[in-house]
């Protein structure tokens, strides 16, 4: 039986063009594991002869290589110094090394390492701020949010930033395809393969909305699990138990309406608005009546400051408000 198994037969088989008896013969031939290498070799040849679409192995290789090298454990901060050979003239290189070392020791003793190597931008209540990173990417931070990124060498390798709060990203594509990664406090990691998206990483939940391009999500607690690839308009939410749900929205811009000093409600409950007031303006909100808390509203309104937002809410829900410093009570 073996001698009828030739390449042409296997090619016909891969194309789905053989008789049941011939298939039986192939199955029998495959019973011998020694033939598996031959099988894969022919499969490969057949595939090469019947390619479905062109692809660039160079791009794929560069991407994978970059990813592997980024994941290799190494102490990043030291690289910033040692990678610059211009500093190491043979007269003073020992001195430079000594100074660097002392600085590092000093920094770690006083717990300042983070301050030296990372820059943190903190945005207070009721404000938004735009940050242009050295690679040209634009980050808009919403109120009560902070962004931390390396002070030196940002853009040399993977561009990693840490976000607490809420921000909108417009990522600049880099010539070497360096990845742009947003890490959030609960271990949800967003790797950017495209351009524009909004990340919400607060106590209540974490949420990513993608406007254009492509991003991959990964939980850092489970690095082995496959990442989730988002498409434009996708909205992925992680609740407090770490469960992810994906939804699709026709208007991903809504999630970044705050960028333009607007607040956009889409069947948003007063309870949720209370959470937003707390996150963005630092108010402590109390709602007297649970029925009231679940009442919802829809619409888009200007939100330049806290007073404007509070006025809008009282008018919209037709409710009363008492305010004492940063404590607010809503009543019917």
């Amino acid at each position, binding site marked *: 039986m073996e001698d009828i198994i030739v*390449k042409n037969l296997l090619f016909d*088989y*891969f194309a*789905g063009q053989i008789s049941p008896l011939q*298939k039986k013969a*192939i*199955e*029998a031939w*495959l*019973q011998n*594991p020694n033939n*598996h*290498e031959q*099988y*894969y*070799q022919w*499969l*490969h*040849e057949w*595939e*090469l*002869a*019947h*390619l*479905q*679409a*062109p*692809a660039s*192995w*160079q791009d*794929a*290789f560069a*991407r*994978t*290589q970059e*990813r*592997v090298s980024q*994941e290799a454990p190494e102490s990043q901060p030291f690289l910033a110094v040692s990678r610059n050979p211009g500093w190491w003239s043979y007269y003073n290189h020992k001195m430079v090394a000594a100074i660097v070392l002392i600085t590092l020791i000093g920094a770690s003793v006083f717990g300042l390492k983070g301050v030296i190597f990372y820059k943190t931008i903190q945005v207070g209540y009721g404000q938004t701020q735009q940050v242009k990173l050295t690679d040209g990417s634009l980050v808009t931070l919403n109120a009560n949010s902070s962004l931390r990124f390396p002070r030196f060498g940002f853009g040399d390798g993977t561009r990693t930033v840490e976000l607490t709060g809420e921000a909108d990203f417009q990522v600049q594509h880099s010539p070497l395809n360096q990845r742009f990664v947003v890490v959030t406090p609960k271990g949800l990691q967003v790797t950017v393969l495209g351009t524009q998206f909004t990340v919400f990483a607060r106590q209540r939940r974490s949420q990513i909305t993608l406007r254009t391009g*492509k991003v991959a999500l990964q939980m850092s607690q*489970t690095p*082995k*699990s*496959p990442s*989730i*690839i988002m*498409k*434009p*308009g996708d909205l*992925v939410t992680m609740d407090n138990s770490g469960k*992810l*749900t*994906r939804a699709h929205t026709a208007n991903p811009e809504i999630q970044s309406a705050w960028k333009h000093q607007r607040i956009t409600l889409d069947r948003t409950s007063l309870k949720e608005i209370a959470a937003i007031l707390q996150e963005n303006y630092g108010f402590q909100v109390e709602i007297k009546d649970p029925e009231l808390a679940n009442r919802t509203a829809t619409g888009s309104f200007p939100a330049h400051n806290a007073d404007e937002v509070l006025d809008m809410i009282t008018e919209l829900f037709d409710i009363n408000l008492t305010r004492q410093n940063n404590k607010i009570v809503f009543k019917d």
Partner: protein
Amino acid sequence: MRPVEHFSVSETSFHKGSSLRHDELQSIVVDNEHLIRVAFTESTNKGFEALFRIYYQALFSHALRFVYTKEKAEDIVCEVFHDFWKSNSFNSIQITYRAYLYAAVRNRAYSYIRHELKEERSMTSPELSEQVPSAESPQLLIEYDELFQRIESVIHNLPPQCQRIFLLSRFEGKKNHEIATELGLALKTVEAHMARALSDLRKAVLAVGLLFWLVN
């Protein structure tokens, strides 16, 4: 690295020209594996460069037969290469790189499509088995082949308009409303065509799933 270029080119051109005899071809294919091994002795990086050069295009094409989405096929193949790299198993595999990579790509592509069709709405992580079985059963090999053939025939047998919409959506990654504009159709019509295509596909892929896992 010149000789490698030369070999991989001649291997591809063989299928177009087809003037080499079988034993000559065999030596070329074996030589490819040999060259990769040589490249690995130089450095891991060089080894993977050779692996990508020689196998990436064909593996990508093969993954496409299962998932019909460019981006996903790329991701699947890159993930396989990535894990192969990180796990250091390239140092110790007993089979050819080719056999390993094809088995891993098929396994992953199958898990992906099964997961995608089964649970399109809820998102729990797909049950990806990372292990490439050391000795695959003939049934398993054949089921993979039958699966991609069945997927192809489902798509082939869709009504022309439905097929067109499916390919625009999946293969070219266009959104429903973009397709609607492009073809001058109502969004509802596009959605209905997509639903039909996916339902046919679901039947073809999931109907055999049980059997498949039992064999596994």
